[in-house]
């Protein structure tokens, strides 16, 4: 279980006259994420979704607030202790091409979290990687290639494999399918759902701006606006379950499913 208490994040930037500007990306956010459950988070650009993702993946620290995980407050941990915890949280980013090191072969990219975060012998490592590659339907022959020699979908699979290589308890997908074409998008979403069903990926948070994708991926949906969660749904099944005006606006912004509903 992950519990977020009064989480705030403030970014400070300077305008052209050198005056400080404060941006509150997260405002006193409290959430509870239960183990073995899948979650989706929707909101428009600038609502703080990615900040929350980065904090959950321990890439960034909150300005104030607590993150309770396995009885420990992760937000207050020292860097060294946090390093060990990183094994439990992984993240898959939007742009697969830019999140893979162009100089590393796919095999090494997938192996990196194992090498950095665990002590595993090379032969065990190979076994783990081959197994994970099979799970994400990435042919073994592709592992020796460089990222630019792979198609967009294969790159995405490699990113998912990398996130899963250390068997984390929790994965954050930050806009992981935005910009993919529809066929590929469905393949990747189905792959994640399949992994979830097989128990390989028991708990995840899927961040998206598309309510259709959110409904497809999870029963538990959070709607975020201006740094706060404004609506929380359990067992959401259709548009009708959303009550908040802002959620309704997001639904109305979706393009029609057929020209008859213009």
């Amino acid at each position, binding site marked *: 279980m992950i519990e977020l208490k009064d989480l705030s994040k403030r970014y400070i930037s300077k305008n052209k006259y050198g005056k400080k500007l404060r941006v509150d990306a997260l405002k006193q956010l409290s959430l509870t994420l239960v183990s073995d459950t899948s979650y989706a988070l929707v909101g*428009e*650009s*600038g609502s703080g979704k990615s900040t929350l993702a980065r904090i959950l993946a321990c890439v960034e620290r909150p300005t104030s607030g607590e993150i309770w995980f396995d009885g420990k407050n992760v937000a207050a941990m020292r860097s060294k202790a946090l390093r060990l915890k990183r094994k439990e949280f992984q993240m898959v980013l939007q742009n697969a091409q830019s999140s893979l090191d162009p100089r590393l072969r796919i095999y090494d990219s997938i192996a990196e979290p194992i090498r950095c975060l665990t002590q595993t012998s090379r032969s065990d490592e190979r076994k783990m990687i081959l197994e994970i590659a099979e799970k994400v339907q990435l042919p073994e022959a592709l592992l020796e290639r460089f990222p630019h020699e792979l198609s*967009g979908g294969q790159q995405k699979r490699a990113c998912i494999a990398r996130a899963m290589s250390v068997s984390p308890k929790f994965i954050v997908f930050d806009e992981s399918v*935005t*910009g*993919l*074409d*529809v*066929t*590929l*998008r*469905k393949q990747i*979403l*189905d792959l994640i*759902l*399949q992994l979830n069903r097989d128990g390989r990926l028991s708990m995840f948070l899927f961040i998206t*701006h*598309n*309510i*259709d*994708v959110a*409904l*497809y991926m999870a029963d538990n949906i959070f709607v975020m606006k201006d740094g706060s969660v404004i609506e929380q749904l359990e067992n959401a*099944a259709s548009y009708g379950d959303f009550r908040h005006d802002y959620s309704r*606006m*997001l639904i*109305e*912004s*979706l*393009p*029609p*499913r*057929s*020209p*008859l*509903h*213009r």
Partner: protein
Amino acid sequence: MTELLKVSKLCIGLKPQTFPIVKNVSFALREGTSLAVVGESGSGKTITCKSIMQLLNPKTFQVSGSIRYRKTELLTMDEKGIRALCGSKIAMIVQNPMTAFDPTVKIGAQIVETLMAHQRISKRDAYASGILALQKMNLPRCEQLMDSYPYTLSGGMLQRIIIALSLIHEPDIIIADEATTSLDVKNQNMVLDELEKMKRNGIALLLVTHDFGVAAKLADNVIVMREGKIIERGTVYDIFESPREAYTKELLKASILKRGNCID
């Protein structure tokens, strides 16, 4: 309704072996109508658009067939003629608004630069008409926008500025190449509404998209491309209600996410 653009038997090959990328593509675009080109990545949609705008490097691409704007053939036109036409009468909106602007130059200066490249106009007048164009797009605080750098604005905002800029010369045709793919649903809706308004004003739209929702909202006619070929064409109602090709059906099915049918 006059026919604005007629593409016939367009073939594009990659030199030196002339590896075919676009094969025998023909379509026509009339005043005030919109045509959506749908297909997955790599099906040749963007290359087709670029060849209309004469943006393909003749050293790498072999283009044959015919692309006619009103009565003029674009493929055999000299560069001067192309410059006068493309960018003013035929405008293009590209996919990623973040990379379409020069990051080191303020929005205002880039708008002025574009205007001065296409018409004899003083800097001051160009600035004034730039502000006017932004106001027409319902953009807030236009003076301030002219004075900001691209990275300080959101993707939706930048995309609307690009549309404003493409409208300045009163084009007949707008080519929107995945214009809303990188935007969130709210901004996408705003941009689509603007495009719809332009269509009502008589501008012809060529929409390139893999999102069937965009086609459903805006298109009158649809062509489906796969591996450089047009495999199906029809009105938007035909394509959505009674698609013939298996590939079209597959694309439609993938675009509508419904729980329960996730793993067949």
